[in-house]
């Protein structure tokens, strides 16, 4: 992590081993879901059979909508009073000290899987379902986001907020995740 972000993204160190035993962990990415800023499902792909239950596309749509709502609530539930709640001081200090807006759900853990959520500044949510032993999903997430920007956003035929149907994105994503899963 000492590398500057741009370098680490390009070279992308592929080794993820336990520091104490030097044994490589099986890193498994089960699925990726992309939710647009309105809570609609725009991309959904399973990479590993047997990791998650098979559910219908309709259920995925419901899941995306539910998650969108829950994500908004979790952002509001923060028990710590934010500095922004104190309006008098915030207005006098100006925009320089505007606090970070509360973030919603970032990581969810269950007995069988781990869900990492990344929200872009434009409100698009990337949901990566992984093995419970995975800890450094941030890197995978960054790479996926990078691919999204490269092969979806730069695709002239892609319409914003609409389901992602880009061959290039599919192929690159699949080969990248396969590389992780087979490691």
């Amino acid at each position, binding site marked *: 992590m000492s590398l500057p972000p741009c370098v680490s993204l390009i070279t992308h160190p592929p080794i993820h081993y336990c520091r104490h035993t030097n044994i490589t962990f099986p890193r498994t990415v089960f699925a990726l879901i992309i939710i647009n800023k309105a809570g609609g499902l725009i991309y959904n792909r399973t990479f590993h059979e047997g990791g*998650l239950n098979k559910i219908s596309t309709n259920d995925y749509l419901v899941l995306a909508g*539910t998650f969108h709502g829950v994500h908004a609530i979790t952002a509001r539930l923060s028990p710590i009073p934010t500095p922004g709640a104190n309006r008098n001081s915030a207005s006098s200090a100006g925009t320089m000290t505007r606090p970070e807006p509360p973030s919603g759900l970032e990581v969810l853990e269950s007995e069988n899987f781990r869900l990492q959520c990344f929200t872009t500044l434009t409100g698009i949510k990337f949901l990566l379902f992984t093995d419970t032993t995975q800890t450094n999903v941030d890197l995978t997430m960054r790479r996926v986001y990078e691919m999204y920007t490269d092969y979806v956003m730069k695709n002239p035929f892609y319409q914003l907020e609409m389901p992602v149907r880009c061959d290039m994105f599919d192929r690159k994503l699949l080969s990248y995740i396969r590389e992780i899963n087979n490691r």
Partner: protein
Amino acid sequence: MVVYSFYIFDRHTECIYSKSWLPPPAASSTDILPPTHSHPQQPPQQPPQQPTSSILTQKQSSDNAKLIFGTVFSLRNMVRKLGGSDDAFISYRTAQYKLHYYETASNLRFVMLTDVATLSMRNVLHQIYINLWVEYVVKNPLSPVEHKGGEGVRNELFELGLDQFVRGLM
């Protein structure tokens, strides 16, 4: 590690116990709780100490409890749908806090909000269930079967035990 608050929901989705360990916000008109003396915010029978702010606080915390239940319930269903019916939702984390969840076989739900650095609190919630809930609430002959409005949960031993246990963790 810091524990912010703790909630118990019964199988009828009602919040039967809630407690906050947060100090009251310094420069706010509506205080949450006095830091040392704590009382469950949930029960509506509780006589309000300061007429206006206490009612407001009670309403706020009851709204919060409902939101937490909704979140936890949705996530639990989502997890069970994806991970199979034997899967269990354990926790989620945002940039500000972490929520831990433990559900018993009888659909009693324990929820705890802590800071983000805290590791899994599942065993802690399990301990609370075994050592406090079962000992002081279930084994209490005067305690009703259903804890409507927190009845039977707000007994001295349970509250004291919980407070000591959680303060011991911090």
